[in-house]
């Protein structure tokens, strides 16, 4: 997800004026150079994406139908969709606030100092540390025999929230437990995406505020806050999307359904006939629609953010 943040930043303007003579002469063969990549993207990105999204409209014989959308009335599926949304929202907001706090704390550190570079590197690794290994890390920490769980038991808290959560046993094997686990990659992602915006605040603005008699609170409420708001919201959307689309961690922790990606797994693996599961297609379509809405909103916010950062950073 981190790649996106920087990609959607304003594109670099065209540089140099192309060698028009060579360009004209070589245009034919040059087009051919784009072909292999085009074919590859067509076969392994466009075709699977279209198959995934359209398989929801097909019945078992491949005829067009809307019948699969009845799945969206299934209480289990609806519950999964709702769980996906609230987990993404909660981890985005908590992750966003804590991540922003860490970015804020980093402002007091030297921009090219050791602390800054350690946090930078750690964030890049941890934001990528999703998937199966993250699940193991949390099983070892707050699982049934995890370090913290064992310590709590030693201290006399035999039935603690970690091992008997909500009457359903170990917390991280349940859907709400995913919140704790997801924060481990959400917070670093927030640091990665929000820090550039925070660094973009110009020192002169703070000086101007101080010269005019403003307090630090006023600075954050009237200058820093409003300038950073689009970037902050954009990062929240990115975090939401990141959580909404992640699968591997949940798959390693939760054996049943419960969120949309896990519902897709149930549909794909319960299908006895080899081929496309049509309800999985419906769920895939729902996920893509949500992601497209999120990414469009993100791009719009990113354009607003860019407005304040065009003048370079001080």
């Amino acid at each position, binding site marked *: 997800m981190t*790649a*996106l943040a*920087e*990609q959607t930043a304003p594109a670099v303007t065209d*540089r*140099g004026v192309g060698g028009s003579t060579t*360009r004209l002469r070589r245009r034919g063969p*040059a087009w051919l*150079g*784009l072909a292999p*990549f085009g074919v*590859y993207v067509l076969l*392994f*990105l466009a075709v*699977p*994406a279209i*198959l*995934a999204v359209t398989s929801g409209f097909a019945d078992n014989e491949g005829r067009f139908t809307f019948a699969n959308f009845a799945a969206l009335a299934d209480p289990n599926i609806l519950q999964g969709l709702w769980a996906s949304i609230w987990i993404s929202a909660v981890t985005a907001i908590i992750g966003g606030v*804590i991540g922003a*706090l860490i970015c804020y*704390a980093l402002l*007091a*550190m030297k921009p090219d100092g050791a602390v800054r*570079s350690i*946090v930078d*590197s750690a964030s890049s*690794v941890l934001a*990528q*540390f999703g*998937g*199966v*290994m993250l699940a*193991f*890390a*949390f099983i*070892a*920490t707050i699982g049934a*025999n*995890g370090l*913290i769980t*064992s310590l709590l*038991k030693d201290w006399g808290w035999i039935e603690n929230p970690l091992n008997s959560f909500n009457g359903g046993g170990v917390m991280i094997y349940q859907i709400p437990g995913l919140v704790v686990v997801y924060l*481990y990659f959400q917070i*670093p992602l927030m640091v990665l995406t929000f820090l550039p915006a925070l660094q973009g605040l110009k*020192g002169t*603005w*703070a*000086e101007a505020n*101080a010269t005019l008699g403003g307090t630090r609170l006023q600075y954050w409420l009237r200058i*820093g806050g409003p300038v950073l708001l689009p970037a902050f919201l954009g990062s929240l959307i990115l975090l939401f*999307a990141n959580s909404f*689309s992640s*699968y*591997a961690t949940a798959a*390693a922790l939760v054996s049943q359904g419960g969120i949309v990606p896990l519902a*897709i797994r149930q549909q794909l693996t319960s299908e006895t006939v080899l081929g*496309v599961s049509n309800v*999985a297609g419906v769920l895939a379509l729902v*996920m893509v629609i949500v*992601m497209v809405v999120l990414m469009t909103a993100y791009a719009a916010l990113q354009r607003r953010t860019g407005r304040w950062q065009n003048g370079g950073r001080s």
Partner: protein
Amino acid sequence: MSAPRFAAEPSRATSSIILIAAAVLFLLPIVAMLEFSFRQGQRVDGVQNYGPQHWQGVFDPANSFKYQGLLEGIGNSLLICLLTVVIVLVLLLPVMILVELRFPKLRRVLEFICIIPITIPAIVLVVGYVPVYGVVAQIFGSVPWTIAFAAGIIVLPYAYRPIAANMAGVELTVLSEASRSLGAGWGRTLFSVILPNLRRGILASCFITIAVVLGEYTIAAFLAQNTFQTALVLINHTDSYVSVIFAVLALLFGFVLLLVIGRVGAVGTRRERRTRRTA
């Protein structure tokens, strides 16, 4: 708040408290993994014995039959990494250079294509990959390395960014025109002028590709191929110590990869600064 403050940043003390708290919380699961991997026997009355037996077991050749699936998975993942890097270098990189030099109007299109895999999550693509790989299996057989085709798509956003960032800082058009006008052919321009200037971005992009592919689980799991991650999940059912040990090692490997990326970047900037000064 005693001295007049002109800066918006927090005091050193506040910032230290926040950062130390964050560091402790984020180190906790890593420490817990280490603690878990050194456990020996059951915890009795709050007393846990520790010893290196699980670590020794992993590196003991006598046990290699037990971990054969995992070792095979690691081997498969490394092969997939290699092939995915080849896809990045042979398919993506030439197109990026070509678009930069000859079709600048397509830059936005290429950028858009490279972001799509983020908007379409792996779990969604998998729904489409199941039938696509039915065809792939007919051509190449159902073998692990074919995952590289899908992995090449998954890494597009990550592989694209470092090269694009590198290109934005280098006047590729001017350089290649200079090279051409001095009589160099396209081949020489590409290998002696363009690629050396993009070395930093290309290297970073290869490393991030390796990191992403090693961590890839979703596609391999649904296509029922044995890779590092799917093997880890399997072995976790029988011996959770081994899976935790390998998770620690993989995390360590991730940090090393990132350090290397960082150093590659640092070397590049130092050199740039030097050339700028002499220029």
